[in-house]
């Protein structure tokens, strides 16, 4: 299976692990990630304003690129996924916005939101299947107590994201279980880590992140996994005393391709 892949700015820099292990794991699972040519940064956050067009064009170019290749568009960074999915939704539901965009993009041909957008986790669940992953595990993570941290961008707004139950999600827990580990369920896994406020008010972000880690630890977590570079940064910066890793790294480890990449 071939899919179009949008890595995003951070994955080529500070979050290389998230990207690298995504590639390696996908390969084992029979999925080829075809990186979109000349992709541009999604902008990090979706601007909700109705009258913003320019800030959304980079997402639309990526969407259209995948659409032209008749491939689903897969992202792995929570932020990219959120921005691209919300932009695509706006293209599907807001015709005035779509008209404006298509006038801007006249040279590239029109786009109406046809491309299917998958987060890498959704790809694992819906296109690969957790049962298939389970069969491919070579290093079982049995006995490890792992807490999934979703943050906000994967799940909300639920009306657009439609990934899972936004208040009691299970997609990452199901992944953890398919890798042989125990999934730690804790209520703060969908509360915000502080996001970009850590730039201006690191203490405010710290307060949120500490509460999340504390909640995971009280429920027995030995490790936290996430799909978002900013979440990982905030959770680590607040002084986490348990490891915070990208879910792709955990996946690669279980699939036996982690050492491979390090070597």
């Amino acid at each position, binding site marked *: 299976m071939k899919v179009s892949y949008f890595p995003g700015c951070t994955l080529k820099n500070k979050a290389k692990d998230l990207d690298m292990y995504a590639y390696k794991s996908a390969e084992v699972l029979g999925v080829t990630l075809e990186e979109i040519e000349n992709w541009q940064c999604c902008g990090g956050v979706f601007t909700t304003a109705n009258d913003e067009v320019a800030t959304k064009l980079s997402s639309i170019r990526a969407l259209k690129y995948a659409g032209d290749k008749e491939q689903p568009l897969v992202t792995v960074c929570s932020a990219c996924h959120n921005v691209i999915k919300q932009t695509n939704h706006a293209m599907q539901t807001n015709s005035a916005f779509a008209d404006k965009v298509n006038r801007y993009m006249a040279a590239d041909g029109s786009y109406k939101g046809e491309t299917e957008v998958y987060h890498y986790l959704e790809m694992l669940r819906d296109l690969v299947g957790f049962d298939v992953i389970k069969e491919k595990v070579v290093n079982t993570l049995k006995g490890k107590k792992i807490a999934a941290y979703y943050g906000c961008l994967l799940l909300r707004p639920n*009306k657009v994201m439609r990934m899972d139950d936004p*208040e*009691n999600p299970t997609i990452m827990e199901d992944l953890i279980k398919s890798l042989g580990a125990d999934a730690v369920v*804790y*209520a703060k896994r969908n509360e915000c880590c502080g996001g970009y406020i850590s730039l201006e008010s690191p203490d405010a972000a710290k307060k949120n992140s500490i509460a999340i880690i*504390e*909640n995971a630890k*009280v*429920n027995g977590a030995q490790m936290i996994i996430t799909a978002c570079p900013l979440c990982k940064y905030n959770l680590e910066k607040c002084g986490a005393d348990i490891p915070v890793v990208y879910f792709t790294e955990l996946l690669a480890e279980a699939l036996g391709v982690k050492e491979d990449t390090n070597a």
Partner: protein
Amino acid sequence: MQRVGVFVCWCGSNIAGTVDVEAVSEALKSEPGVVFSTNYQYMCSQAGQDMIKDAVKEHNLTGIVVCSCSPRMHEATFRKTAAAAGLNPYMVEIANIREQCSWVHKDVLTGTEKAIILGKAAVAKVNLNTPLIPGESPVTKRALVIGGGIAGIQTALDIADAGFEVDIVEKKPTIGGKMAQLDKTFPTLDCAACILTPKMVDVAQNEKIRIFSYSEVTEVQGFVGNFDVTIKKNARYVKEEICTGCGACVEKCPMKKIPNEFNLGMDNRSAIYIPFAQAVPKVATIDPNACNMLKNGKCGVCSKVCAAGAIDYTQKDEYINEKYGAIVVATGFNPISMDKFDEFAYNQSKDVITSLEFERLTNAAGPSAGKLVRPSDGKHPHTIVFVQCVGSRCESCAEKGKEYCSKICCMYTAKHAMLTRDKYPDTEVYVFYIDVRTPGKNFDEFYRRAVEEYGVKYVKGMVGKVTPEGDKLKVQASDLIANKQLHIDADLVVLAAAIEPDKSARPLATMLTASMDTNDFFTEAHPKLRPVESPTAGVFLSGACQGPKDIPETVSQAGAAASKVIGLLAKDKLTGNPCVANSNELMCNGCSSCANVCPYGAISYEDKEFRMPDRTTKVRRVAVVNPAVCQGCGACTVACPSGAMDLKGFANSQIMAEVDAICK
């Protein structure tokens, strides 16, 4: 040619405000057949009616057009007036120039023009009217009550009290409904069981009442006065008439780990069970999904210990056909699922419970024998947070919850909070509310007592997130008056879940052809003036199936529904509606299109001999309408490809004459 009289009503200023009534009566004077036209302030008044009667005599009228309000309001009035003047009542036509005319138009010119057109259409129709004579049908003097909660119980008792037979069909093994699960009742705090169980016993002992428990209605045919109902009695694998309810089987049953639905799964029951001590009928029931004997033929303990020999593993579902004159729907409500509201962590912690679960936790017959303890560890909770409006008052695009106010939550939460503070003064009790709604006798006083005498902390605001952490529930909420975000370490969180109609209501409504609103509450015939009747004749509404309501309201409505049923059953014969379908056998080709669309099963076929032009005879299959069953909906008239089917009083020719008059 008819001699038509036109009477234009002002309806005070309701019509005359935006319709020039003088111009209307003047314009209609020149319509074909019209020999008299006038207008008057209130046609429905005695003086107005007398005016019609006098005109009939004076002008030898054969048809009447009243331009007034909706025929739903006063058609019956003017038909009686016509009858009193010696006319056939079906020679009256109403032109509704109020609801969709004077009330919706703002300027007199438009309103008047439309009123004249509507009047012309009615005149065109009345010119083609023929006298109609309604048929009569007998009334089966027995009522069916569907649902055995407090609504159904009260309705059945009141009908039986008037001397009529009543059957209650209850899908659970016992009657009693939600009220049997409650602990105390607001605002007087009487014990629910103490006031309900005497009524349950009354039902059991009443010779006029039969209870079909563990049963459901599967088919309804017929019409008002003559319903034909199929009741499915689910196999309970216990002979009801022999079982003494001694409970020996329940005690000895080895399968003891079945979630007890009466206690909302907070404790277990055995595979053979009696829901609660005062169950009516006090008869055991075997849960076929849990019983080893029924699943794999191994066990049989209950049969061995039953002294009465009541156990019957071979029992089958039984279907009973019964005739009824009236049907009362009393299917009640349930709290909605909390699955979509997990910001409150209902699925993530045992100590987040619904209010109905709280009732069971404080009930002496409940899982903790009435001691208020945390379901997770059995410890006494010291800080309790009640959250109101969980799933109520949600905007439709919020994709979860209900748009309406569930009405009962403010009061039961005040009750819970008050009783908790009364029995356990060492607890801190918070109630988060959006509005406290207490419009009922002694209701607001009750709520204020909870605050002023019992020290319940009412906080204006909502809870945003509940985080189970260790043995605490971290509650994050807003206090809008203090403009603060609160963080409370609670031991127990109680959610006032919105209520919704029982899931059985929707298929039942289909069977009854009774209408429902978008929330699956049954619709009443008129929201103010006919609140306990369904628009479907012979079907009545009792309790929360019609809308959220508390016990006093439910009991009042149950009595009202009973009185309507009694009024119906007291009649020996019902006058039918003469506006029924009629098939022209010369044009009918027997294709069955009409029978296929008839919702009432009123159309059958017979083979009939016809003389052909060449003097031979030919047998053809033709449609025949049973006028007693036909409700005059007209579906068959549009389905008929050959134009053989017509509706009396609404003939195709009459409708076309109206359309022509409007388009002229």
